[in-house]
């Protein structure tokens, strides 16, 4: 494992902690500036998860919670892409965990308040580890949009949550994937917390007809970028401390 430090995170590209239209940030956004610090082994190392962690159906949300011989209801969907670092290199052996609502927009959670039906054959979680070139693929059903208690009538666009471990604790990232063409994307206060349209576009997966399986599943392509290691930038940062 390389111990080269990571380039600093561009905080202006990520959503600010406080975003007025997203009400939950009001009492939860730290108000003090984040403390800049040099990276140590704490940040440059990270837990390692092997391929043997992954069960046979972990990357198949259509079947991993379903009764034998049954399947989740919804638009059968393949999501695939690559996990890269900021230098454009594939990130192999990256544990990715995903979770989502069912095709009706309801989560399997006791605090979920939406009245859409639960699908008895859909749990809503999956995981996989990226291959040598950083590529991954999983199967699911397209999640539904759902209303949430924020403004008087806010709806979340269809989305899948992604949690990623790179090779270091500093690379830890949770993000969300949206689906091309969804009109709710531009109305969502959580999407709207991202400052630039260019950055939002990075979270919108295009339909990928080439990867569809005829008479089975449509496909969306979603590439994810984690922080990259960069010695030169880091030295520059340290000088400024």
């Amino acid at each position: 494992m390389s111990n080269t430090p990571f380039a600093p995170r561009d905080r202006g590209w990520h959503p600010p902690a406080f975003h007025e239209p997203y009400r939950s940030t009001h009492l939860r956004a730290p108000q003090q500036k984040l403390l800049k610090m040099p990276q140590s082994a704490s940040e440059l190392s990270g837990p390692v998860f092997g391929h043997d962690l992954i069960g046979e159906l972990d990357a198949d949300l259509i079947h991993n919670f379903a009764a034998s011989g049954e399947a989740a209801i919804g638009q059968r969907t393949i999501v695939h892409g690559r996990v890269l670092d900021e230098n454009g290199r594939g990130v192999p052996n990256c544990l990715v965990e995903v979770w989502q609502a069912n095709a009706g927009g309801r989560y399997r959670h006791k605090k979920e308040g939406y009245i859409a039906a639960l699908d008895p054959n859909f749990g809503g979680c999956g995981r996989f580890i990226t291959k040598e070139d950083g590529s991954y693929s999983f199967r699911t059903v397209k999640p539904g949009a759902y209303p949430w208690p924020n403004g008087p009538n806010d709806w979340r666009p269809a989305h899948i949550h992604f949690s990623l471990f790179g090779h270091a604790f500093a690379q830890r990232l949770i993000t969300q994937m949206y689906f091309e063409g969804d009109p709710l994307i531009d109305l969502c206060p959580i999407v709207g917390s991202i400052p630039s349209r260019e950055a939002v576009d990075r979270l919108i997966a295009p339909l990928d007809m080439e990867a569809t399986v005829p008479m089975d599943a449509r496909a969306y392509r979603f590439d994810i970028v984690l922080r990259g290691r960069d010695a030169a930038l880091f030295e520059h940062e340290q000088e400024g401390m």
Partner: protein
Amino acid sequence: MGQLKESPSQTAGPYVHIGCVPNFAEVTGVYPADLGQVIARDEAAGQRITIKGRVIDGAGAPLLDAMIEVWHADANGVYASQEGADPHVAGFGRVAGDQDTGVFEITTIKPGSIGDEHAPHLSLWIVARGINTGLHTRMYFAGDPLNAVDPVLLAAGDRANTLIAHPDDGGDFVFDIHLQGPAETVFLDM
């Protein structure tokens, strides 16, 4: 270098447990066990400790939907992915607060110093609804002599006390994380 930009972070939302600790969220039968439940096995070298705490919002209420990840070195200051680490210390843990009280509990061993004058500490990462980018912080131990020279505690200045856990009457460490207010925890940009 730097041809690509990091994917923008988005909140983990209120249902992060479905994805990260599904058995805790009562989505059972998918994974045999949730990740990060055993940070240090009984055989691990070092002093066994329990840390109890809450994540508290700007109104003084504990978060009931947070997930905290822990990453720390073994008793000799070596991380699990480094050479020579104690094979009984995973160093990585995931804890969710109690769904009624928000109290989380971390059971592990006290890590050693990782060198370069870093005092023994746990790295923590906090996600929840309303947290747009996961928050990194560190937890240190009251009374450790290295605290006086630790670079992060020094940089934190008069807010360094927000990073220090204190033992209670029973010997467990108590560490509350404040997202806002006069006791706001120091969060790290590293």
